[in-house]
């Protein structure tokens, strides 16, 4: 056991490098996913069939074909057509497109949950489309979508562990290397999983803070959350969270 800990300490600098790769994948994938989600989410709501149709097809396509398949397709098959990317870019693009498609449903559902009266009030005030969305609809929809986006962010982090299988040296790779060095499966994988858990915990905490801010801007979360409430991890996965928004897996 003490040998294990010594090996772990020797490998801590490399853990830093591995964390950077995992975080690059997670943050990069999440940023791309947000852009994709908003584009496709709004696209799925337009009246013109020429925009709505393709948006729906793209969303259903990326949700329906598994992340693993997409990742390896971009890695192995796209170069055949002359689009060769670095492995890191492949990971970010695959994660961003897949979770962006899931996010598009969240964006669409949340915008639809904003009461109709809000849109009508905007019309009454003669606000332009951009103004409506930016000042009235999005602040309300944003507070609704954050819990579901948090779930997706954690899913994305977990999906990033696949990067090891497209030659990237991420946290999963580091864990495997630690196992080879210590030849102690239980120790190395517990450390690796704890590292993932720590990242997921920090991300959840950051998103909870973001949600609290969004609610306070709407005048809903008047009280500062208790420490326990801020540290709670309970995901919003029940049927109630998704009910009536047409958000299906």
């Amino acid at each position, binding site marked *: 056991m003490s040998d294990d800990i010594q090996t772990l300490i020797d490998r801590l600098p490399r853990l830093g490098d591995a964390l950077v790769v995992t975080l690059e994948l997670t943050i990069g994938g999440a940023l791309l996913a947000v852009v994709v989600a908003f584009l496709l989410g709004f696209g799925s709501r337009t009246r013109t069939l020429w925009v709505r149709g393709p948006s729906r097809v793209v969303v*259903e*396509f990326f*949700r*329906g*074909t*598994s*992340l*693993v*398949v*997409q990742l*390896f*397709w971009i890695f*192995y*098959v796209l170069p*055949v*057509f002359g689009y060769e990317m670095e492995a890191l870019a492949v990971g970010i693009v695959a994660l961003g497109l897949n979770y962006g498609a899931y996010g598009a449903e969240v964006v669409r559902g949340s915008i639809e949950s904003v009461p109709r009266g809000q849109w009508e009030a905007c019309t009454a005030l003669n606000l332009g489309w951009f103004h409506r969305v930016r000042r009235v609809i999005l602040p309300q929809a944003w507070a609704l979508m954050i819990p579901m986006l948090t779930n997706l962010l*954690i899913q994305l*982090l*977990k*999906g*990033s*562990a*696949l990067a*090891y*299988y497209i030659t990237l040296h991420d946290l*999963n790779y580091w*864990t*495997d290397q630690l*196992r080879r060095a210590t030849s102690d*499966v*239980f120790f190395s*994988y517990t450390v*690796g*999983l704890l590292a*993932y*858990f720590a990242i*997921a*915990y920090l991300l*959840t905490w950051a998103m909870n803070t973001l949600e609290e801010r969004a609610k306070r801007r709407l005048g809903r979360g008047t009280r500062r959350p208790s420490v326990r409430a801020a540290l709670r*991890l*309970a*995901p919003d*996965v*029940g*049927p*109630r*969270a*998704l*009910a*009536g928004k*047409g958000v*299906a*897996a």
Partner: protein
Amino acid sequence: MSPETVWRWDRAWEVLPHLLEGLRITVLATVVGMAVASVLGLVIALAMRTPSRWLTVPLRIVTDFVRMTPLPVQLVFVWLLLPTVPSLVIGCTVLGVHYATYMSEVYRAGIEAVPRGQWEAATALDLPRSRTWLGVVLPQAVRKTLPGLGNYAISMFKETPFLFVISVVEMFTEAQKFGANTFSYIEPLTMVGLLFLLVSYPTSLLVRRMETRLA
């Protein structure tokens, strides 16, 4: 390169039987995994309702831990720990346990959504605890959890390719094997993707229908 040389139909037809064979394992893993998840998820949800903190706090930590760490890493972990157990068994169990942590939240929400009046009525009728749960609360709660169960079944189906990390030969691994042997990934990987879409999209439409009907 012209498209004819890139995509070859003869290779596509050649790989299809392998993929359908793999699809069988994929569906099997999903069904077994979902059975484990729905039973274990209910057990977790019920255990979380006990007043004893000595049970709920550790259980909460364990479920959060399982839920927030990557499935591929968990799979490899268990696979290396138990080298004698067949990888398909490990795959189904880990999938099931991973999704049980999600399912427990769905059950919890379903149980909490049963109106208080139902509990009070059961008390007024002096029903024993077992009948309160089995005859009154659970039937109503489970009905509300069916769409959630369906959604997780679909997403589990799409996560079975993760089983390639412990070399379970399901649909994706079949495609990869074929690709590695023929140095051509385009036909097998494209067709695997389309097969996933072909199964998961109609199922998700069904679940959506169920969602609106049970809502």
